[in-house]
C-alpha cells in the first residue's frame, strides 16, 4: 500500500475561502427555498383549481421537477438557455434549477397537507361563526403547517446537498470552491474530507435549528 502523506496546512490556510463557499451554499439554498415556497403555493393552488389549463400547467411543472435529475435541470438552465442567448451565471443556473425542483416537490407537500385536513374541520369552524378567512387562519392553516413542517425541513436539507452540483458548472459554492482550491494545490483528499465534514455540520445545524423552532412554535405537539 502506498503511503499517502496528508498535508493539512494548505487546507487550513484556505479555510476562509471554504467558509466563503459555505456561505454561498447556504445563500443559494435559503433563497431557492423561499422562492420555491412561493412558487409551490401557486402551483398547489393551480393544481387544485377548477381551471383545466391552470391545473395542467401546474401538473407539468410538478411532474417535470419530480421525474428528472436535478443535474439535468441545472444543465438545462446553464447550457439549454445559453443556446437561446440567455446566459445565466453558474449561481443563477443552480438557483433556477433548485427553485424549479423545490417548487414542484413542495407543491405536492402542500397539496397533501391541505387535503389531509378533513373538510368537517372547515365546516365546524364556519358553523361556530367564523368567516372563511378566520376558518383558514385559525383552524386549517395551523394544522396544515404542522404536517408540512417536517417535509419542508427535509426539502431544505435536500437543497443544501444538491446545491453541491454547482461544482459541475463552476459555481463558487462550497463544493465549487473546494474543487478550485484542490486543483491548484493537488491536496484533493484533504480538501474533500473537509468539505464533506462542513456539509455534514451544516446539515446537522439546520436540523437542530429546525428542531428548536418546531419546539417553540408547536409547543411539543409535533406529530
Amino acid at each position, binding site marked *: *500500500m*502506498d503511503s*499517502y502523506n496528508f498535508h493539512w496546512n494548505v487546507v487550513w490556510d484556505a479555510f476562509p475561502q471554504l467558509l466563503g463557499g459555505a456561505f454561498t451554499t447556504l445563500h443559494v439554498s435559503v433563497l431557492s427555498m423561499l422562492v420555491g415556497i412561493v412558487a409551490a403555493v401557486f402551483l398547489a393552488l393551480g393544481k387544485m383549481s377548477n381551471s383545466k389549463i391552470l391545473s395542467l400547467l401546474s401538473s407539468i411543472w410538478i*411532474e*417535470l421537477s*419530480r*421525474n*428528472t*435529475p*436535478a*443535474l*439535468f435541470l441545472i*444543465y*438545462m438552465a446553464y*447550457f*439549454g438557455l*445559453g*443556446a*437561446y442567448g440567455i446566459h445565466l451565471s453558474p449561481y443563477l443556473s443552480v438557483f433556477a434549477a433548485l427553485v424549479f425542483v423545490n417548487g414542484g416537490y413542495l407543491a405536492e407537500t402542500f397539496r397533501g397537507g391541505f387535503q389531509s385536513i378533513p373538510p368537517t374541520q372547515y365546516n365546524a369552524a364556519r358553523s361556530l361563526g367564523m368567516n372563511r378567512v378566520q376558518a383558514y387562519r385559525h383552524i386549517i392553516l395551523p394544522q396544515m403547517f404542522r404536517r408540512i413542517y417536517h417535509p419542508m425541513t427535509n426539502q431544505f*436539507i435536500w437543497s443544501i*446537498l*444538491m446545491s*453541491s*452540483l454547482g*461544482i*459541475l458548472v463552476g459555481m463558487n459554492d462550497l*463544493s465549487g470552491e473546494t474543487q478550485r482550491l484542490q486543483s491548484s494545490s493537488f491536496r*484533493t*483528499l484533504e480538501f*474533500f*474530507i473537509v*468539505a*464533506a465534514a462542513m*456539509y*455534514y455540520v451544516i*446539515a*446537522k445545524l439546520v436540523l437542530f435549528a429546525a428542531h428548536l423552532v418546531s419546539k417553540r412554535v408547536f409547543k411539543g405537539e409535533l406529530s
Partner: protein
Amino acid sequence: MNLFTPISWNDAGFILTGVLNTVYISVIAIFFGTILGLVLGFARAEGNKIVNMCLGGVLDILKSVPLIIQLILFSTFIGAMGYPLEPFVAGSIILSLYTMAFMVEVFRSGFDNVPAATKKAARSLGMSYWQTVRHISIPIGMRSVLPSWIGVGLSVIKDSALVSVIGYMELLRTAEQLISRSQQAVMILVGVGLFYFLISYPLSLYGKYIERKMTR
C-alpha cells in the same frame, strides 16, 4: 472551417451506451441497496440501543454528505491508497451505499409496522424466531413498504446521473460530450430529459396507485 459537427444517426449508438449504462448502474445500486437495506433495516428494528446508535450515525453521514462529494472523495481515496478502481465499480459501491442509507429507513418502518401481537401469535404456534421473521415479519412488513421502495428507487435512477463526475459514461455525460461537439444543447438535453421522464413518471404513477389501493 466548421469546428462543430451536427449530431446524426451515427451518434445513436453512443447515446444508447449512455442509456444502458444509466440503467445498468441504477439496477445494481437498487439491487445491492435493497439487500443491504433489508438486513440493516431489520437490525435497526430489532436491535438494541447501541446497535441503533452506531448504525444511525453511519447512515446519517451517508445521508448528510452530498453524493457528489462522496463519489469524488471515495475515488480519490482509493486512488491515493494505491487501489484505483474503474469508475463503474467505484460508482456502484458509493451509489449502492447511498441507496442503502435510504432503504434502511424504508425497511425499518416496514418491520415496525408488523403488529407485535402477530409475531407473538406466530411464536406461540411453535415457530422459531427466524421462522417468524421469514414467514411473518418479512411478508407482512414488506407489503407496506412498496410505495416508499419505489420512491427510493426513482431517486436512485435520477441520482445515478452524478456518477458522471468520476468518469462513468452514463446518459448525462454522453449528452454533455455530444453537446460540446455539436453545440446543439437544447435538442440533446430535451431528449435526455425525456428519457429520464419516461422511466420515472410511469413508475411514480404506479407507486401512487399502489399507495391509494393500500390506504383504501
